[in-house]
C-alpha cells in the first residue's frame, strides 16, 4: 500500500505531463491533543490546515493533499517516534505545528536528517532558527525572542519603564528574563530587580509581594504554562493591576486568558502574532474557524493555516515536493495571506510578520465572549524578530 500510492502518482504523472500537476502531498499535524497545550494547538491546528487546503484549492490544481494527525503528549520521545514513522513508512512530506520546544527540536533534527519540511507554529524556542538552525525548518508564528522584544520594547515606549521580574528558576525562565531585560534596557527602561521562583511553582504570594514592594511599573512574568496562570490568579487576589502596576505575560495565549477569565486576567499586557478581531479578513476567517472548532483561533492555529497555505503555493510554484526546491520556493515567493498578512521567510528559517501588543480588557470593557484584547501597538515585521546576524545560525554566512 505504501508503494502503491507513489507508483500511482508516478504513472499518472507520466501520463499527463502536459496538463495539471499530479502531486500527492501528506501533511502530518503533530501536537498535543490531550494535555495542557491541547486548546491552543490540538484539533484546531488540523482544522486550520484543512482550511488552508480548501482555500488554496488544492484539488483543482492537481495537488492531492492528505492530513495525518497525532498526539505527542508533549514528550520528545513520542514525538520522535511518530515523526520517524511518518517520514519512513507513511511518506509524510511536511510536519506542522509541534508545540513544546523539546519535542519540536527532536522533530527539527529528524526532518533535517530525512530531508523533508518542518513548519513550526506551536513551539517557542528561538534556538530553532539560531544555533540549531536547519535548511528544512520554517519557524512560522512566534518565538521567545519576539515575545520578549515585543512586550519589552513596546511597553517601555508606552511609558512602562521600570521593571521587576518574576522568573521561573530554570534555563527557559532565565533566558526569557535575560532577553527581556536586554530589550528593556536598550529601550531606555530600567530593571529594578528580579525574584526567582521554583519550577513548577504553586504559591507566588511572597514573590508577588516583593515585586509589589519594589515599586516597579511593570511586573514581568518570565515563566510559562501553569506557573503564569497561577501567578496571574494570585496577582489578581492581591489587586496588583488594580493598584496601578502592570503585569506583563511573556508567554501566554488567548486560550489562557479565556481559561482565567477577564476578572483575573484584566490589565495583563502581552504580545501575539494574531488576534481574531484585528481586521475584517481575520474576523471572517476566525468565524469560519469557530464554526468548526467552537472557539476562536489562537495565533498557533493562524500560523498553521498561513504556513500550510504558503507551503502549498511553493509546491505549485516548484512543481515538485522535493524539500530543497520547496524550501527555496517558500523563501522566494512573497508571503501574503488574509490571516497573518505579509512577510518573508528568511534564510535561517525565521518567518517574519507584524507582531501586536495587547492589553487584556476589564469585564466592563468587554462586549462578550472572546472580546478580550485592546490593541496597544503594532511591532513592524522588520524589528519584530531577532536580527539575522544575532542568531548564530551557520546558514547566514
Amino acid at each position: 500500500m505504501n508503494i502503491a500510492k507513489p507508483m500511482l502518482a508516478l504513472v499518472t504523472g507520466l501520463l499527463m505531463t502536459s496538463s495539471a500537476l499530479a502531486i500527492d502531498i501528506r501533511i502530518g499535524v503533530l501536537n498535543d491533543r490531550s494535555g495542557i497545550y491541547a486548546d491552543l494547538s490540538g484539533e484546531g491546528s488540523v482544522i486550520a490546515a484543512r482550511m488552508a487546503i480548501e482555500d488554496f484549492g488544492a484539488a483543482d490544481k492537481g495537488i492531492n493533499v492528505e492530513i495525518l494527525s497525532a498526539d505527542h503528549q508533549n514528550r520528545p520521545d513520542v514525538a520522535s517516534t511518530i515523526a520517524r514513522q511518518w517520514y519512513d513508512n507513511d511518506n509524510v512530506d511536511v510536519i506542522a505545528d509541534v508545540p513544546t520546544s523539546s519535542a519540536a527540536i527532536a522533530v527539527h533534527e529528524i526532518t533535517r536528517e530525512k530531508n523533508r519540511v518542518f513548519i513550526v507554529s506551536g513551539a517557542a524556542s528561538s534556538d530553532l532558527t539560531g544555533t540549531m538552525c536547519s535548511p528544512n525548518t520554517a519557524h512560522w508564528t512566534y518565538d521567545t525572542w519576539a515575545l520578549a522584544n515585543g512586550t519589552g520594547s513596546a511597553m517601555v515606549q508606552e511609558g512602562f519603564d521600570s521593571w521587576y521580574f518574576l522568573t521561573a528558576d530554570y534555563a527557559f525562565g532565565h533566558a526569557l528574563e535575560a532577553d527581556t531585560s536586554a530589550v528593556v534596557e536598550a529601550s531606555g527602561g530600567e530593571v529594578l530587580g528580579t525574584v526567582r521562583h521554583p519550577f513548577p511553582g504553586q504559591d507566588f504570594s511572597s514573590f508577588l509581594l516583593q515585586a509589589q514592594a519594589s515599586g516597579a511599573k511593570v511586573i514581568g512574568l518570565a515563566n510559562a504554562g501553569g506557573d503564569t496562570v497561577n501567578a496571574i490568579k494570585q496577582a489578581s487576589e492581591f489587586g496588583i493591576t488594580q493598584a496601578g502596576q502592570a503585569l506583563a505575560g511573556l508567554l501566554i495565549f488567548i486560550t489562557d486568558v479565556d481559561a482565567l477569565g477577564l476578572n483575573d486576567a484584566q490589565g495583563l499586557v502581552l504580545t501575539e502574532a494574531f488576534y481574531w478581531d484585528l481586521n475584517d479578513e481575520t474576523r471572517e476567517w476566525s468565524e469560519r474557524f469557530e464554526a468548526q472548532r467552537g472557539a476562536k483561533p489562537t495565533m498557533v492555529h493562524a500560523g498553521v493555516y498561513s504556513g500550510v497555505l504558503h507551503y502549498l503555493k511553493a509546491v505549485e510554484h516548484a512543481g515538485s515536493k522535493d524539500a530543497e526546491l520547496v524550501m527555496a520556493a517558500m523563501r522566494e515567493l512573497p508571503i501574503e495571506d488574509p490571516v497573518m498578512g505579509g512577510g518573508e521567510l528568511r534564510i535561517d528559517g525565521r518567518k517574519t510578520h507584524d507582531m501586536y501588543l495587547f492589553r487584556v480588557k476589564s469585564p466592563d470593557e468587554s462586549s462578550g465572549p472572546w472580546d478580550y484584547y485592546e490593541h496597544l501597538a503594532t511591532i513592524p515585521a522588520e524589528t519584530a524578530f531577532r536580527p539575522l546576524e544575532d542568531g548564530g545560525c551557520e546558514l547566514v554566512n
Partner: protein
Amino acid sequence: MTDQTMSGAPVNEKTRQPLRVPVLHMGIFAALLIFFLAAPFFLYPVFLMKVLCFALFACAFNLLLGYGGLLSFGHAAFFGGASYISAHAAKMWGFTPELAVLLGTGAAAVLGLVIGSLAIRRQGIYFAMVTLAFAQMVFFFSLQAPFTGGEDGIQAVPRNLLFGLFDIRHDRAFYFFVLAICFGGVLLIYRIIHSPFGQVLKAIRENEQRSISLGYQVNRYKLAVFVISATLAGTAGATKALVFQLASLTDVHWTMSGEVVLMALLGGIHTIFGPIAGAALIVAMQNYFAGFGAWVTVLQGAIFVIAVLLFREGIVGVIGKWLKKPL
C-alpha cells in the same frame, strides 16, 4: 543445572515434571529471540527498539519489586540519569555507542549505590518515598545543570561507529545492536533470579526476620539487588538515548517511575516475561493510539482498570496460572 531446576519451580507448587520449567523458559526465550530477529522486517524498527529498551527497564525494575520485594518509586533517576550521561558522552566527547552505553550504565551503578545504601534502611512506603525523594533531586539536577540543556534536553545525539569500525547509523543496523544489549540484559536478570543469590532474595522477600535468623546479611543482599536493578535500568536508559538521539526531562520525571511500575503490574510481577509484555503493551498504546488524539490517555486508563480488575496477577501471571507453570 540442578540449582536452576530447583529455583525455576517454587517449592510450594507441585510440579509433576520438575525438569520441564527451565526447558519451557528457554523455549520462550528462543521464540522471543526469533521473533525479535525477524521483527524489523515487518514492524517499524524504531518502535521495536523502544519496546526493547522499556522491556529491559521493566525487567530491571521487576527484579527489585518482584524478586526483592522492594517497591522503588524512583527508577526514573537511573534510567534518565544514564540517558543524559550516554547522550552527553556520545555528543560532546564523541564516544562510540558501546562506550557511551557502558559509561551511562556505570553512572547509574554509582547512583544506585549512593541512593540504595540510604534507601534500604527503611521499608515499605518509607522506602518508596526515599527513592522518590532522591529521584526528584536527580530531576532538579537535570533541570538546572548546564550540560543537560534544561527543558530542551540533549538533542541530535550522533550514532557513532560501533567499536569505531562499523557504521550502524541506519535504523535496522542499530536495531540489532539494541537487541543484543537488551536481550543480554534480560538473560542476565533471568540468571540472577535463578542463582543462589536470587534464592536468598526470595527468602528475604517472604520473611525477612527468618532470613536474618538464618544468618544472612539481609541489608547487603538488598543493597546488591538495588544496585543491580539500578545498573540495568541505566543500561536501558543509556541505550534509549542513542535510539531516539535525545535525552530529555521526560526520562527523569516521576511519571517515568510510575510508568515502569505500570508496565510491571500490567505484565505481572513475580514473573520473568511479564514486564516484557507490559512494556510492549504500554509502548504500543503510546505509539499506535497517538492518532486517537485526546482518547489516548482515556484508553490507557481504561485498559489499566480492566487489567487490574480481571488480571490481578498481570497478563503473564494469569497465563502462568492457566498453564500451572511459573513464567
